[in-house]
Structure formats: structure tokens, C-alpha cells
């Protein structure tokens, strides 16, 4: 039984209702104010730029994670799937698998194929969860362990270095001054938020997370929805993997997406989505990821050593989730 279903202790107070809506946003604004006060050179376009580009991949992955968590699941394999997509794409556009003369074609094929493979592996996760009723943590643990191994085996662990501007546009390019990866992120966020609220699929995701048995008896195709959700998570992880390697002009199967699952889950939780499923907030996830990013930025920019930063981050995650929960409970 979820903690959220426990009866509330607090009488109704408008302050809580306000907090409920805007808790993460308030935390974020406070952090920004704090930075303006203490962090040198904070108010500049470049700061915004740095933070937005650094948070992109986490947000993209976290959106997929939000959907998975909304069905009552979890996806530990995202980091490994990023590595697989990141390993595969250069192999294709650098002609290691099949020779394609035309750069544009090769890059297009590389992007489509590697993202599709990540999506297919995501669907495999969903298949394990839906068909065999394997618990999501365990089902996705399989690819968490094996997936990175697959990426490493594909490349023999070697770094793949490249310089292909056509491909690297997804990480480094700009449209109307906006980094292309930020545009991808925005599209993903807006699409997911809309989908969750306005479509049958979104409703079904929430129904499954809320009460799977009831959803099934109300005609929701539980298995199909789950497979689709894990596949989306895989696709988004694949896209994030490509962005990471495009920025770095190199793909390192050992490191691409390492630890991403925890970052994404933390963003989802700080954003106010319950890990027990049945509820989800995509905007919350965006704010959660931004919050964590700003915390990271603040600590780094102010020279807090890594060890102390870890403790501070822990405290902020707990505080943010607790405020959320508190606001909810009323």
C-alpha cells in the first residue's frame, strides 16, 4: 500500500493548496535568488545556456521515466540504452557496419536505427513486465547490467572519436539562437504533457498505475500500454544518448549515460510524481530536473567539494520531496 494513501493529519489550509501546485517552482525560484546573491557572474545568458544544455538529456530521459513510473513501474536500463544508441550511431555513420557514401543519408540512417534499437530494447523491457509479470526493477535490471556490456562488446570498449557536423548538429547546432537539443527537450516535454492529459493513451497509463486490475477489467489493453510506455522510455533514452555523444564528438560505451537512471528518477521524484504510480506531472519533472541542475551548478560554482556536495544534494532531494508530499497530504 502506498504511503500516499495514508489518511492525512492536517486540516485544510490554503497555504498547502498553494504549495501543492507550486512547491517545486518555489524551491527553484528560491535557488535562483540564492544564486543571484552568492554566485559570481550568475546573471548572464551564458549561464542560462550552460544550465539548459546540461539539463537537456536528463529531462528527455526523465520524461520517459515519468511515464513508466506513472504505470507503477520503473526503468533502470535507461543509461545502458543511451550507451547502446551512442555506440551504434557512430558505427553506422562512420561506415563500420555498411558503407554509405552520402553523409546525410548515413547520418539519417544512424539516428533512426540507433534510436529504434533503443526503443526496441525498451519494448523488450515492457514485454518482460507485461507478459511475464516480472517486477519492473528486476526486469529492467537485466538490461541495466547486460545493456552496457552489449555496448562495450560492440565497440570492444574503445572510444569512437568522430567529427561529423551533420550528426553533431543535434548536440551542438542552433536554430534561431536556441540550442537544437533544447528544442528537442521542449518538444518532448510539451508532447508528453499534452499526451498524458488529453489522450486516451495518457488516461490509460494513469489508470494502470492507479489500479491495474480495475483498468484491465475496464477494457484497458494493459499489456500493450505497458510495452508502449517502456518503448517510449527506450526511444527517449536513445535520443539522449545521441545528444551526449554529439556534444562530445566521441562515444564512450563505458560512460555514456552512466548513473542516468538515478538522476532521472530523482528528477521525477523532486518533480512531485509519486513512485507508486497512478499520478504524474511532466511539468513537475521538468522543474525537478531544473532544480537538481541548479543545485549542482550552485555547489560547483561556489567551490563546494564533491563529498560535501553529495550530502547537500541528498538533503535537498529529501526536502523537496517532503514539501511535495506535505502539500499533497492536505
Amino acid at each position, binding site marked *: 500500500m502506498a504511503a500516499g494513501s495514508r489518511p492525512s493529519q492536517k486540516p485544510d489550509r490554503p497555504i498547502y493548496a498553494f504549495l501543492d501546485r507550486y512547491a517545486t517552482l518555489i524551491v527553484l525560484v528560491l535557488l535562483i535568488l540564492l544564486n543571484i546573491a552568492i*554566485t*559570481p*557572474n*550568475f546573471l*548572464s545568458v*551564458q*549561464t542560462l*545556456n*550552460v544550465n539548459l*544544455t*546540461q539539463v537537456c538529456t536528463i529531462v528527455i530521459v526523465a520524461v520517459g521515466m515519468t511515464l513508466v513510473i506513472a504505470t507503477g513501474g520503473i526503468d533502470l536500463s535507461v543509461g545502458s540504452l543511451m550507451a547502446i544508441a551512442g555506440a551504434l550511431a557512430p558505427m553506422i555513420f562512420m561506415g563500420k557496419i555498411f558503407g554509405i557514401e552520402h553523409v546525410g543519408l548515413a547520418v539519417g540512417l544512424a539516428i533512426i536505427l540507433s534510436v529504434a534499437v533503443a526503443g526496441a530494447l525498451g519494448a523488450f523491457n515492457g514485454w518482460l513486465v507485461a507478459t511475464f509479470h516480472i517486477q519492473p526493477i528486476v526486469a529492467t535490471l537485466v538490461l541495466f547490467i547486460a545493456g552496457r556490456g552489449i555496448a*562495450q562488446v560492440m565497440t570492444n*570498449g*574503445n*572510444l569512437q*572519436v568522430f567529427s561529423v557536423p551533420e550528426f553533431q548538429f543535434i548536440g551542438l547546432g542552433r536554430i534561431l539562437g536556441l540550442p537544437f537539443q533544447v528544442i528537442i527537450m521542449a518538444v518532448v516535454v510539451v508532447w508528453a504533457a499534452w499526451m498524458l492529459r488529453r489522450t486516451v493513451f495518457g488516461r490509460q497509463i494513469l489508470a494502470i498505475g492507479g489500479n491495474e486490475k480495475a483498468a484491465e477489467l475496464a477494457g484497458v489493453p494493459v499489456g500493450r500500454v505497458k510495452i508502449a510506455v517502456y518503448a517510449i522510455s527506450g526511444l527517449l533514452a536513445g535520443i539522449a544518448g545521441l545528444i*551526449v555523444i554529439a*556534444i*562530445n*564528438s*566521441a562515444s*564512450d560505451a*563505458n*560512460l*555514456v549515460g*552512466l548513473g542516468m537512471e538515478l538522476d532521472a528518477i530523482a528528477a521525477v521524484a523532486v518533480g512531485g510524481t509519486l513512485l507508486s504510480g497512478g499520478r504524474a506531472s511532466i511539468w513537475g519533472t521538468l522543474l525537478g530536473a531544473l532544480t537538481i541542475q541548479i543545485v*549542482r*551548478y550552485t555547489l*560547483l*560554482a*561556489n*567551490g563546494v*567539494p*564533491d*563529498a560535501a556536495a553529495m550530502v547537500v544534494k541528498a538533503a535537498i532531494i529529501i526536502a523537496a520531496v517532503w514539501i511535495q508530499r506535505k502539500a499533497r497530504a492536505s
Partner: protein
Amino acid sequence: GLPTLEVKDTYKVGFAQTESNNPWRLAQTNSMQAEAEKRGWQLVYTDAAGSAAKQVADVNSMIAQGVDLIFLAPREEIPLIPAIKAAKGAGIPVILLDRNVDQSLAKAGEDYVTFIGSDFIEEGRRVAEWLVNNKPGGGKIIELEGTAGSSPANDRKEGFDTFIADHASFEIVASQTGDFARDKGRQVAETLLQAHPDADVIYAHNDEMAIGAISAVEAAGKVPGKDVLILSIDGGREILQLVIDGKVAAVCECNPRFGPKAFDTAAAYANGEDIPGKIINPDNFYDASNAADLIDTAY
């Protein structure tokens, strides 16, 4: 005394690698495997995935398999001592590669044959020395550290920081970990450059982070090599090309090609030759003056 190694045509030797998650380690492993193949020795290879405890277990399983000699690239100085003692107990000689162990607990020539490797502190010191000599005006330095708690990170920091401390015109304005990784190194460099726009030197503990730092400098609208000097350690081919291109100022080499020397030492030990307790790899130092000439020798 040390266990002995009899003279044979071929040996079954173990190589207990620490981890294989970066190009340097891969180059080291490849070098060891290539050398074993060349000599027709059997190599029992294990990978501890970054865990000292697992590495001890790996060594124990080599002992159980009855290898003739163990090459050990210890994850850490102290925790690997039990492995060395166990090997000695089982009559198997050990040769340490690239990192040493705590000398108060185990001694060369007594508990293990010898240590072959570089001196991480010295590497850091040489980079600092180059900087002081080549940037007379002084500077503000951003340091990108390796994985917190790992000995190359600790030592490369110590060697560099100690030297810089004696030169008042230089200041380390920020020092944060980039985990030896390109992506993390880039993100940390981006942030630190924002917070310290006046920084004009970036010292990275390895090539990967240095390459990440180049992207960060460029993203901040500055010119690497001109506005910001970038210094690194390891000296792989990719970074040498960047030295030639003028984006990286100087690199201290840390050569991962241990194979020939390691196997030579083992053979010499079997022959009963006298082995010194410490064999330091001669590491090159690259800057614009010699990079183009030496790039073909880099790993």
C-alpha cells in the same frame, strides 16, 4: 624471501586489471594481451570493475587456478595487500603495474617482485613546472580532478598543487572532480568557466577531461590555447593532435604500454637476474615544440 619462478618455455600468468572503463586502461590491457600472445604465454585476465575488494577475490581465483606469476595493477595502495600476501603464501611471485602498494605493509623484493610504473605525483609536478616556466605572467587555474578518492587523482593533484603553492603569481581558483570522463569534465568546466570568467588555465588530470574542457572553452566563446591554456596528463594520440592544433598547451605522458617491459621483467626474474624494487617508466612530456615529431610514438 620471494617465491621463485622456474625457467620454462611458456608460462601461465595472471593479469588482474583494475577496470576497463577508459581508453588508458584499454591500451594497457591490449598491450599486455598482445605481448602474451607474442610470447605464446597464457594470460589469465580479470577485471575488478573498479573494486579493490573484487580485485583481491580475482587474485585469489588466479591463485586457485595455479598461475605461475601475477601481474597486478592494484586499485589501491592498502586494500590489495592481502592479495599480495596470499600470492606470496601460495608461492606465486607478483609484479605490480602502474600503481604501487603501501610500502609500510609490503616491500619490493620481499612481498612482491617489483613495481613498474609512473610516478603520478611527479606527473602533476612536471605539468606545474611547465606552466610556471611558460606563463611568466602568472594565471588563474581551474583544476579538473579525477575520480574522488582514486590514487591518480590524489597524486596528480598533490604534485601539481604543491608546486603551484610556491608560486604566488598562480592561483587555483577552482578544483572539482570531473570523474576522469569527457562529458562530466566538459560540464564541470562549463560551470567553472561561468563562475570564474577570469580563469586562463585549465589543468585536467587526464586527456578525456581535457578534451571535454576544450568544448567548454569554445562554448563559452573563448579560444583554447589563446584565452585559456589547457594542460593534461596521459598523452594519447588524440590529445597530441590537439597539441599540434594548438588547442592544448602541454601534456605529460603516462604510458600505458606496459606489456613488453612487464613480460621482460618476468622473464628476467625467472632467469634469476637482479630486479630493482621500482622500475619507473620514462614518461615523455609534450608541448608544441615536440608533439608533431613524437605523435607516432604515442599510444
